[in-house]
Structures are given as structure tokens and as C-alpha cells.
């Protein structure tokens, strides 16, 4: 469904992503692993259109249509929604307003209400925080709200950028369960994680990026056994 073909992304003259190819099929749960600055977030942002793929150097296809070069809102309208890094909410808007903005693309009010209910059953904690401002939430709640906002748009592909960053182990576990549940509902997921163990436990297929280049790919069960991965990312 989502296909990156040999993409290059440059910041000024420095390549952040080099010749990267990856494929995500419908219903897949894919994780992208790598150290700080390996180009994971850049890859996600390239899919969303926030950073541009270098002209003539690679293409991104979604459902057979070329999407690199399109504006971010257009890509979002096609069904690719990112849950950005650092639990970004609108801090001065209430949780409810944040969620409504997430459903910005949903013109059908009835559908939006249904979505809201669906999302709130998935995140029962948010129910009594609906009228609290985004900045009054704790870190974990903010992350939940950000994911809930992403789900409000009924995305086909959900991109997670480091959702577990800065969360306590207990919350991380809770988050993992929720992401797993979302995946079981049939949403295609691309998860970018520094916490390699979490990513590999959740996903079914993994890509390892180093210095912007694809180093390794395979089923997560195989990656977990791989000696290099063990040494570099799992600390075994």
C-alpha cells in the first residue's frame, strides 16, 4: 500500500536519508529502528510531505499514486496521519477541541460523533479530561490524547513518531497494548522507536536504519535473534 522507492532526503547539502526503500502492505505493523539521528523521523516526515524528497531521487507511492511533492494536508486527506513526536497537542485548546481538530477531515458530523465515542472507549482516561486544556494533562495523558486525535481522522495508515519517549515503564506497557489494539482493528501502522525492544515486540516486520541507510530488514522474530541487532539495540 505504501511504498518508498530509493528516496533521498537532504537538509541543505547533508543527506539525512540515503537511498531508502521500504514497503508497507495493508494491515501491516511495521517498525523502523535506529539510533538518534539515524533518519527515522525524517523518513516519517518525508512520507507526510513535511520534508521534501530530493527531486529526481526517489519516489513515494501510496495505493499506486505518487505522493511525494504533494502538500501535507493533501497527504493527510488521503489517509496518512502522523502522531508527531513529543506528544504535541494544542496546549491552549481543550482535549475535546484537540480531538475535533483531529477530525478536521471528517465532514460528516454523525460519523465524527461515532468516532469520538469509539476513541473514548479506547482511552477511557480522556473521558473526564475532555474539557481540560491540553497543557494541563500529564505526559502520558498527552500522548494518549495525541494518539486519540490521530485516530479521529479514521486514518488508513497511522505513523507513530517515538510514542514511548519519556514515559514510565508502566505507561509504556499500557501504550503498547493500545497500539496493538489499534493494529488489530485493521489500521496499518508504521512505528518509529528508539526503544528497539518495544518496537520489535509489537511489530511484525522491522527495518533498521543507520546513518540514513537501510542496514537490515526482516521479520521481527528474526531480528530479535539477530546478533548485530542484539548487540547494538537490545544491549544483550
Amino acid at each position, binding site marked *: 500500500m505504501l511504498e518508498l522507492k530509493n528516496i533521498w532526503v537532504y537538509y541543505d547539502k547533508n543527506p539525512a536519508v540515503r537511498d531508502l526503500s521500504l514497503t508497507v502492505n495493508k494491515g501491516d505493523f511495521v517498525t523502523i529502528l535506529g539510533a538518534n539521528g539515524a533518519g527515522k523521523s525524517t523518513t516519517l516526515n518525508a512520507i*507526510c510531505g513535511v520534508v521534501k524528497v530530493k527531486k529526481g531521487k526517489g519516489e513515494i507511492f501510496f495505493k499506486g499514486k505518487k505522493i511525494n511533492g504533494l502538500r501535507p494536508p493533501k497527504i*493527510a486527506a488521503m489517509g496518512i496521519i502522523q502522531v508527531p513526536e513529543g506528544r504535541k497537542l494544542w496546549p491552549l485548546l481543550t482535549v475535546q477541541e484537540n480531538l475535533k*481538530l483531529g477530525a478536521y477531515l471528517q465532514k460528516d458530523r454523525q460519523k465524527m460523533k461515532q468516532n469520538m465515542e469509539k476513541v473514548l472507549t479506547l482511552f477511557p482516561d480522556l473521558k473526564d479530561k475532555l474539557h481540560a486544556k491540553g497543557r494541563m494533562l500529564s505526559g502520558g495523558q498527552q500522548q494518549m490524547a495525541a494518539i486519540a486525535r490521530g485516530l479521529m481522522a479514521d486514518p488508513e495508515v497511522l505513523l507513530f513518531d517515538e510514542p514511548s519517549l519519556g514515559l514510565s515503564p508502566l505507561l509504556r506497557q499500557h501504550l503498547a497494548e493500545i497500539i496493538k489494539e489499534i493494529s488489530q482493528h485493521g489500521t496499518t501502522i508504521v512505528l518509529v522507536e528508539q526503544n528497539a525492544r518495544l518496537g520489535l515486540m509489537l511489530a511484525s516486520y522491522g527495518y533498521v536504519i543507520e546513518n540514513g541507510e537501510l542496514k537490515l530488514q526482516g521479520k521481527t522474530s528474526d531480528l530479535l535473534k539477530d546478533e548485530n541487532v542484539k548487540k547494538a539495540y537490545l544491549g544483550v
Partner: protein
Amino acid sequence: MMIKYIDWKVTIPRIVAAVPIAILVFIPVFSTSRDTLSIIILSGVWVIAAMGFAMILRTGQFSMGQAAFMAIGGYASAILTVKMGWSFWPSFFMAGVISGIIALIIGSVVLRVGNIYFSIITLSFGEIVRILAQNLEGITHGARGLIPPSPEPIVLGSFEINFDASVVPYYYFMILLVAITSLVFWQINRSRLGGTFFSLAANQILAEHQGIYLMKYRVIAFTVAGIFTGFAGAFYAHFLEIITPYMLGLWESIQIMIMSIVGGVSSLVAGPLVGAVLLKVLSVYLSRLPVYGIHALLFGGAVVLVLVFLPKGTGLIDLWKKFWRKVFNEPEWYEIPSIDE
């Protein structure tokens, strides 16, 4: 029957706020002094312009050329009446339309750059309008300006509303204009559109991730502001019965800016209204003192005071909210980090 619960904490401040508004509406009953009424009428013009500025600021853009749209509206209406022989009402309407169209065209080019560059370009746009008005002698009469006529009398049966006889018709015309503008802006503020404006000012990239086109909403805000500012400008020209290139320049744009910021841009209607009326009325009375430039000092002083004592984009209108929180003994909005982490 359903018993409607009255929330006094909402109702009482509204009733108190309604008192000065009611007084304003009924002033002509007590006094028909041309002097007093003119000051209030003119402050109404600035109220509308300041609301327009606040709307553009809501999308995160800082327009420094709002007076140019007043000039465009004023000149459009003046040219249509004086040069083309139109009557007042259609040309007044066209003034808003023309100003809106120009805002749409300028906005869809200039808003692409956004932020500080947008401010610089709108600043120079204001100057361009002034220079054009001065040099297009054939259309605008250059520095001498145009003298637009007052509106034709409206005949309602045996009763006639005559704009030449007194300023009271102008007064109610202005009240109507401010009321319509407030209604439109208030509706926008509480609708989905208002939320979208706010969201893209607060975080552009996040807004784009949700599928919001930045340009579309920036242009909408700029155009709506342009339309109403154009109406305000046309009213200004016809009320003063003159429009010259120097009446609406950079200083006026800065005044508009200061008025809405001092009033408070957290609300699209009440803040600019309070700021504009307060500063305009004060500055008119102050400028009668035999001290040169004292009204300019007022504007500068007001900005400094607001920036020092009411930072983070709050203005006088937020003092009002704070006052009522004190009265009802409601807790201040403290941020308590929860302890589940």
C-alpha cells in the same frame, strides 16, 4: 416543563456589560451634541478596523497595513459617488466588495511567505496605496483628496432620515455596522472556522498534519478583515466628507494594531471594541489639551503598560474576566501536574 438553570456566574457579568452598551445605544436620547456623538461615531470606525486586525492575528499573522484597506474602501466609495455619479448605498456596498477583492488578491500572494515577511510586505503595501492615491491625479485628485457626499435621505412614509440635518442617523448607522461586524466575528470565533484559525497560529505543522491548508484559512481571515475594514473606511470618508492620501497611513495602521492589542486579542469582538473606544475617546479629549503630540504619548504609554502588566497576549478584556473570577471567588487557573507518572 423544563426548568432552565440560570448560571449567575455567567449572567451577572453579561448584565453588567450590557449596561454601558445600552447607554451607548441611547446616548442620542440624552444629548444630540454633534461633538460628543462624532467622537463615538469615529471610534466605531476604529473598532471595526481593530476587529479585522485581531482576526488576522488569530491566524498568527501580524498585518501592519490595515489602514490601507480603510483607504481603499474610502477611495472606492468616494470615486464611485463623486466620479461615477453612483448614489451612496450601492457605492458603500461596493467599497466593502472592492476592498475584499483586493485583500483576496494581495493575501493569496503575500500570505505565502507569512510571519515577519508578511508584516513587512503589508507595511509597504500601505505605503504603496498612499503613493498611488497621491499620484493618480486623474482619479483621486492627488493630495487635495475627494469630497464624497453624505448619504441620501431615507424616506419611510412621512418620516425622513436625513443625514445632513444631524449626526444621529450616522450614529445609528455606525451602531448597526459595529453590531453586524461583531455578530459576524463572534460567530466565526465560536464556529469551527475560529478553532481552525487558532490551531494554525498555535502550531502550523501540527495543523497541516491534520489536513488543514494554511493558505486557505489565512486568506479567508485576511479577506473577511479586508471586507469589513473597507466598510469602515467608506463610512469614515463619507462621515468626514473628505478623503486624502494622508488620512490613512502608517500611523493609523499602528493605531489599529495598538487598539486591538491593548483591548486584548483573546476575544475577537470585546477586546478590540474596548481598546478602540477607550483609546480613541481618550486621545480625542487629550489632543485638546495644549500639549503637542499628547495623544501619541497615550498610545505609546498604553502599549507599554499593557505589555508590562498584562503580558502573554492578554489585554484589558482579560482584566474583566479576572475581576469576575475574584468576585465569585473562583480559584485561579493553576496548573497542577498530576502524579500518575
